[in-house]
């Protein structure tokens, strides 16, 4: 009599057992929790600051649209940064401009800022007509994904800004 199990009953019972074996040990559930925690941790990185430098030492900084003809006319520098920096403690930064360096009309300084760093001011590079070419290359530290902003100061005192986005895998500041 005990052996008299219908096929339908057998299938039902085995399916239920299989489901229990799969979901029961809770290993899968724990894994899912870990994934959630990791995602939360990643989201806790400070949001990217999108505001620009407004003034330096009381002088106003002008931001032009990158596609505008004025932007090309000013010969503002090209900011060279890697797309993704694997080590945030050592990011090569090159600022290169074709602007002439003659007496009375030259680039006086480059001010570098990053608002996601603990200290937003990175460095200032002062140039003179003796340089012959407005070019600076250096290495900087960057904390996280952010905009690196370069303000160009001309000899007539006007300041123009430019910025570039960079992704950082391991912060270095």
């Amino acid at each position: 009599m005990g052996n008299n199990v219908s096929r339908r009953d057998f299938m039902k019972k085995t399916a239920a057992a299989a489901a229990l074996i799969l979901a029961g040990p809770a290993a899968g559930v724990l894994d899912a929790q870990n994934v959630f925690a990791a995602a939360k941790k990643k989201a806790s990185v400070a949001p990217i600051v999108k505001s620009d430098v407004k003034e330096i030492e009381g002088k106003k900084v002008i931001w032009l649209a990158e596609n505008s003809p004025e932007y090309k006319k000013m010969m503002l520098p090209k900011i060279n940064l890697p797309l993704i920096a694997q080590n945030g403690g050592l990011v090569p930064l090159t600022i290169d401009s074709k602007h002439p360096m003659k007496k009375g009309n030259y680039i006086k300084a480059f001010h570098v800022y990053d608002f996601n760093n603990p200290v937003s001011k990175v460095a200032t590079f002062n140039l003179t007509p003796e340089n012959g070419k407005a070019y600076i290359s250096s290495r900087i530290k960057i904390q996280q994904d952010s905009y690196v902003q370069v303000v160009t100061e001309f000899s007539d005192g006007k300041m123009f800004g430019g910025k570039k986005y960079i992704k950082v895998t391991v912060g270095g500041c």
Partner: protein
Amino acid sequence: MKIGSIMVRVPRKVKKGEIFKVMSITKHPMDTGLVKNPKTGKIIPMWIINKVDIYYDKKLVTSCDYGIAVSANPFLAFYLKADKKAPLEFVMYDTRHNIYKKKVMINVE
């Protein structure tokens, strides 16, 4: 290498009026004052180079103000216009009041 030693690379010979590249690297830890020592748990105090002056023929040509976000062993490259045979001098100041100097000769033909 000692801390504060500066390595400078310039071309061996340049023509008059030529624009040439100067590259330099300085040995310095550039501690930000935000990092803890993993062994002792104490904060490593801030120690950075904060000012760099470069003189060509005793005239200030280029100068830099550094913050904490300049990488360790700071690298600096820039261009110069060759006028006459004269020394190029690097002077660096750091937050512990040390002064590091380096002089190189520029041979103009």
